[in-house]
């Protein structure tokens, strides 16, 4: 199931003019506040009628300005988690959650009320009305409501922004499973690179209404040119990996093209393919194999390029096997280590810095 979007829509001040394809899985829409993310999602949902362009889901045309096709909102069957909640104030939490069920087609399957309420921690408040919920609780209901409508696709506009870390950690794996097991495509807006890196198969970066970069998550997130969009702290590389072995002491050994990585126990079976994200600021560069360090992961490689930023830092791209790592170090260190393209170095990565949130299955 792939979603094709190609729309133009003028807004006072600037124009939204985007074209991208969401090939299934999770497509993250990323961009500054006001970049046009909600506008694009609204157009897909049918809540906004773009001036020109067309939108198609799995070959079915949802909207085509030229052919004058405009499938009504309720027949698009796209579960939309709104940025502003929009719960039905007159219905109990339970009836908010089950609202869409009666409209779902006969055969549609999916998680049940109990499962979703449990996951979202809403089981004790099913009989309350939205007026008696906290901000995060409201957002969770909105989330569950969209899920339970058995949609063909999910549209999520910052669904987790109001949630605390613990709750996020519960919901993210669920979203992953949803993506992997049901194949439900998801269009996902988030300001959190960590969330995007974990969930997204495809990343579309918007700036002032235009797509500045779109492609597979690994490529877009590892692109040193995108550092400004994601923020210096979030720059990093996403590498394909395979689960090599689960060790008895709770560590999992991953095989990447440049060597081995150890990280805390993962769920997937040995042999499974996965993805790891290594943040640039978590990588230490050494000119010799370090000894007596608590860091378990030391990968040999060669400097590919050096990029100076503003300030005292630089980004070093290191070729490790067929993959490219990013490391953020100070210019002072670069000089001390006499780094230059071609120089062979070791990348030192702490085990735990490849945290679970940053590992995603593909």
């Amino acid at each position, binding site marked *: 199931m792939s979603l094709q979007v190609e729309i133009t829509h003028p807004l006072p001040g600037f124009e939204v003019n985007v074209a991208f394809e969401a090939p299934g899985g999770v497509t993250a829409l990323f961009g500054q506040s006001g970049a046009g993310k909600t506008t694009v999602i609204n157009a897909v949902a049918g809540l906004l009628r773009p001036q020109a362009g067309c939108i198609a889901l799995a070959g079915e045309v949802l909207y085509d300005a030229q052919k004058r096709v405009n499938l*009504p909102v*309720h027949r698009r069957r796209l579960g939309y988690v709104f940025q502003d909640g929009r719960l039905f104030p007159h*219905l109990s939490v339970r009836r908010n959650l089950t609202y869409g069920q009666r409209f779902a087609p006969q055969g549609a399957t999916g998680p049940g009320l109990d499962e979703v309420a449990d996951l979202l921690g809403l089981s004790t408040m099913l009989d309350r009305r939205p007026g008696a919920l906290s901000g995060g609780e409201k957002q969770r209901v909105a989330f569950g409501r969209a899920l339970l*409508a058995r949609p063909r696709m999910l549209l999520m506009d910052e669904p987790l922004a109001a949630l605390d870390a613990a709750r996020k950690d519960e919901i993210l794996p669920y979203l992953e499973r949803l993506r992997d097991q049901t194949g439900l495509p998801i269009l996902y807006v988030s300001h959190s690179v960590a969330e995007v890196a974990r969930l997204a198969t495809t990343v579309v970066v918007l700036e002032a209404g235009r797509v500045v970069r779109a492609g597979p998550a690994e490529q877009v997130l590892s692109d040193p040119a995108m550092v400004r969009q994601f923020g210096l702290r979030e720059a990093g590389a996403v590498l394909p990996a395979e689960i090599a072995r689960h060790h008895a002491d709770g560590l999992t050994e991953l095989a990447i093209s440049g060597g081995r990585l150890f990280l805390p126990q993962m769920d997937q079976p040995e042999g499974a393919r996965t993805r790891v994200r290594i943040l640039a600021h978590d990588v230490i560069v050494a000119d010799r194999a370090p000894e007596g360090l608590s860091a378990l992961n030391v990968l040999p490689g060669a400097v590919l390029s050096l990029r100076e930023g503003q300030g005292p830092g630089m980004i070093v791209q290191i070729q490790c096997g067929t993959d490219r790592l990013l490391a953020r170090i100070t210019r002072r260190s670069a000089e001390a280590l006499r780094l230059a393209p071609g120089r062979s170095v070791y990348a030192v990565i702490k085990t735990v810095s490849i945290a679970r949130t940053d590992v995603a299955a593909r």
Partner: protein
Amino acid sequence: MTGWLGPEEWQAVALSLRVSLWAVGLSLPLSILAAYALARWDFRGKQLLNGVIHLPLILPPVVTGYLLLLGFGRRGPLGGVLEEVFGLVLAFRWTGAALAAALMAFPLTVRAIRLAIEAVDPKLEQAAATLGASRAWVFLTVTLPLILPGVIAGAVLGFAKAMGEFGATITFVSNIPGQTQTLPLAIYTFLQVPGGDGAALRLVAVSVAVAMAALTVSEVLARRAAKRVAGG
């Protein structure tokens, strides 16, 4: 109580209730439809429709009554059709009184409901649509419950108006005891005779009591509906 009001007066009370309830009951769906159309749709002649709906409010009731008489009287074009096709006679029957009351109450009911509809956030209706609800379902499950307080307010306003309607009724269906003599007509009749003030006053009291009861019930209902929405 039966001693306090004569049988003819009880008749007037019962008739007024029947007329008002039918008037409100039958016109309510139409009021909601009209209010929805005015609030949410854009169509040619919308201003005209709005104006026509308000006519009974603007015109002196006598004029409305005469127009009804001309249109729905037995010799009137519409009256003839209704009688032939549906066997429904309005002129000089309580059904006609109900029509007059409904017509006079219509602008009030429509206005109240329209205001309520305009206050509903279309974003909620959009949300319902994304969940698969067609327009009709959105209306039934989201819009209607949310405007319930307004619908109740409109219905009660209409009921009160119907209970008090005089000019159009007496002009359209005359003042026939037991058939078209509603409370206000009976009050009027008593006011026409010397010494009738006492009887008129009693009927006024009944009229006020009924309307107050309706008001109170409606307030309670509306508050309950509103509280559901506010959440608690």
